[in-house]
């Protein structure tokens, strides 16, 4: 089964339909997703600013990690749970959304950045001073840029400008959204 067919099927399961059509559940999930942004994205921004050496230079980076990272992780867990449920409520449209697809790609890159930072850069943290070494600053800057774009794209998923059922779209858009428009839609 193709992903397209799978998400089409998923969207017709009774729980997905119930979530999509519910009066409050979807709005509440979406609200929790947005509010948790303040914890998750907010703590990431503060940490990235510390990596860049722009704030809290007197506080060792290791201490910022040990005291703030648990909050970031808690926020991440809530973001993933609410985000997955939001996707589950509208799977096919989300899967074909150009904003959703770009967001997932950038999430992957952000994850890669976290992994590279923690395996290759962070082990030398004990030697860092007020302004961390260049590698750490790059990781911080990349993280800041990626997460800002992810928030931006997340907001845009709500808009249907490039949706498959809104034809005509350019061939490029239809390619990027795996959309095969029907003849009758032109």
């Amino acid at each position: 089964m193709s992903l397209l067919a799978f998400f089409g099927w998923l969207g017709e399961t009774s729980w997905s339909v119930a979530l999509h059509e519910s009066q409050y559940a979807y709005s509440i999930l979406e609200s929790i997703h947005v509010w948790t942004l303040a914890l998750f994205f907010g703590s990431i921004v503060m940490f990235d600013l510390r990596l860049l050496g722009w704030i809290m230079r007197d506080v060792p980076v290791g201490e910022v990690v040990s005291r703030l990272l648990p909050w970031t992780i808690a926020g991440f867990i809530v973001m993933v749970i609410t985000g997955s449920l939001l996707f589950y409520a509208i799977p096919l449209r989300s899967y074909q959304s150009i904003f959703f697809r770009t967001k997932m790609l950038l999430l992957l890159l952000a994850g890669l950045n976290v992994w590279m930072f923690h395996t290759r850069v962070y082990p030398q943290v004990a030697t860092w001073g007020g302004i961390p070494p260049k590698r750490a600053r790059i990781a911080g800057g990349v993280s800041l840029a990626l997460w800002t774009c992810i928030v931006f794209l997340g907001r845009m998923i709500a808009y249907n400008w490039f949706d498959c059922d809104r034809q005509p779209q350019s061939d490029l858009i239809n390619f990027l959204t795996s959309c095969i428009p029907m003849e009758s839609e032109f």
Partner: protein
Amino acid sequence: MDLLPTFEWFYATPVGETIRNSVWLFPVIEAFHLIGLGVIGGAVLLVNLRLLGVGLTRQPVAQLSTEAQPWLLGALALMFASGFPLFLSEATKAYYSYAFWVKMTCLFSVLVFTFTIHRRVTQGGLAEDNPQLAKLVGLISLVLWFGVAWGGRWIGFS
């Protein structure tokens, strides 16, 4: 005092009309508003978690508060710069939305609170001397900020 005529005047401003007539202006300004929300969240949590006795507990409250201040002010500026045009574009809707009034009440309260009591407690060393007071002040601040976020999100649903 009836504010409706004032809100109707805001609604009719060229900025409000331009945003209403554009497909992408509202979403893009709104996205910037969300990014501001995140930065405010970070700056506010940094200080208030410390007041609650978690987070960066080895640092003096006054120092954390001073460090967070420019980012709080910068993010607030971004919030006003993006929020006000959004308001202009739907001022009459905002007038009839209870979520909008909850948001504005909480926003006004939290701004006054932040620059009076909250500041005195964080900057004057009171937080270290009186952990119970610090916890109370941190909690009030977080609850009020959440009221702002709650109202903000709910304007869109009303």
